[in-house]
């Protein structure tokens, strides 16, 4: 029988490295990443699952880190935006967004990158612009108007961008 706890020791594999911490069960995965691990690339917008800024990849699937408890990630693998670049060189997804100027203020960008990273990781292949919009409907951008983001994703999925 698991015991009740108000503090819990957890170990989460974050960007390939095992990270241990003691957290309150009410700690969200987003706050664990930002406050306990200082991984502030994951942004927090609405904190109730509407905006998508806090998207990370958990065990291969893009999810809202504000709607998951840190204790639920114990023993699981998390990839954040800090984990997609290869030793300082941008990931092809990042390069494609960069090439297409797919951001303005950049607040939503980590969430978009991780949603796309999740799609690519699942082997989404090439998608139509409409399909891209549906896949990314869970990420809100308040400045770009989305056109450039869709351009960037099209480029990223074309396989022609390398970084």
């Amino acid at each position, binding site marked *: *029988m698991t015991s009740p706890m108000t503090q819990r020791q957890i170990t989460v594999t974050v960007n390939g490295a095992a990270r241990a911490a003691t957290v309150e069960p009410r700690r969200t995965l987003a706050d664990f990443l930002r406050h306990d691990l200082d991984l502030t690339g994951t942004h927090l917008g609405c904190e*109730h699952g509407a905006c998508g800024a806090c998207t990370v990849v958990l065990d291969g699937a893009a999810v809202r880190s504000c709607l998951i408890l840190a*204790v639920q990630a114990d023993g699981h693998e998390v990839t954040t935006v800090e984990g997609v670049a290869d030793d300082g060189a941008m990931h092809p997804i990042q390069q494609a967004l960069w090439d297409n100027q797919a951001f303005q203020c950049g607040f939503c960008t980590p969430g978009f990158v991780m949603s796309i990273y999740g799609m690519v990781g699942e082997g989404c292949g090439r998608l139509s612009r409409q399909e891209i919009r549906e896949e990314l409907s869970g990420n809100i951008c308040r400045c770009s108007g989305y056109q450039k983001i869709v351009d960037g994703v099209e480029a990223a999925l074309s396989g022609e961008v390398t970084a």
Partner: protein
Amino acid sequence: MKPAPFEYWAPTSLDEALKLLSGFDDPGDAKVLAGGQSLMALLNLRLAQPAYIVDLNGIAELSSISRDNGTLTIGAMTRQRIAERSADVAAACPLMVQALQQVGHPQIRNRGTVGGSLAHADPAAELPTLAVCLGADLVMRGPSGERTVNARDFFTGFLSTVLAEDEILTAVRIPAAGPGTGSAFEEVARRHGDFAMVGVAAHVQLNGDTIAAASIALSGVDGQPVHAADAGAALAGQTPSDDVFAAAGAAASAGLDPTSDLHASGAYRKHVAGVLVRRALKVATARAKENQ
């Protein structure tokens, strides 16, 4: 905001979870956590402040999809995205795939569960409406054993069901779609992925060129999903036509008295309900024809 403090329990079997739920001083102070795509938001906003959280994510036995003897059974903790992509679900319940594609966004469906959506019972949600349309059976376990309640008797009001505080929803059983059947899920929302202002699930069984049976359910027009039983039953024996579908839409809408809110007026919802019923029946009938 951040959740208020709670005690966190993560059982690894259904029996353990049930023992926990009935062991708390006040079982009403406990919340069962499934995919968390509604409950976590309520915790973050402190609209819910339970003393205990019982997390079902470690219970592997609740996650399964199986098909036998004309019934599709989906375990309560099956992720919506898994169900959406399942060949068994696509074959036995195409309406489920259509409905799931309109639930939130991919990132929500990656985590959200089939049972969680049913137990949460949001009146605007897709899966409760689907379950009512198809007359699915909901299976629940409590300290005194298992019981099964039809979806048409399961929902009792806004975010309310017949589930007792010490019970857990374990599975949904859906009659598999046979030859000559077709279904459709139509909704109107402000933005793709938002909760619908009105949603309609329709299921049609054809016998040659005649409708043998039809079922219609609506979301967003009352505190719980609405089964338009009379409008559905009146379609039996009819030859499908635009006039027949329009009459069914008018009949389904006539009995509704939706409330007004920030998103839409009651009168608008009532009008849209009739239009969506007509559209859903037309699409469902075309699919039933293809499926003969």
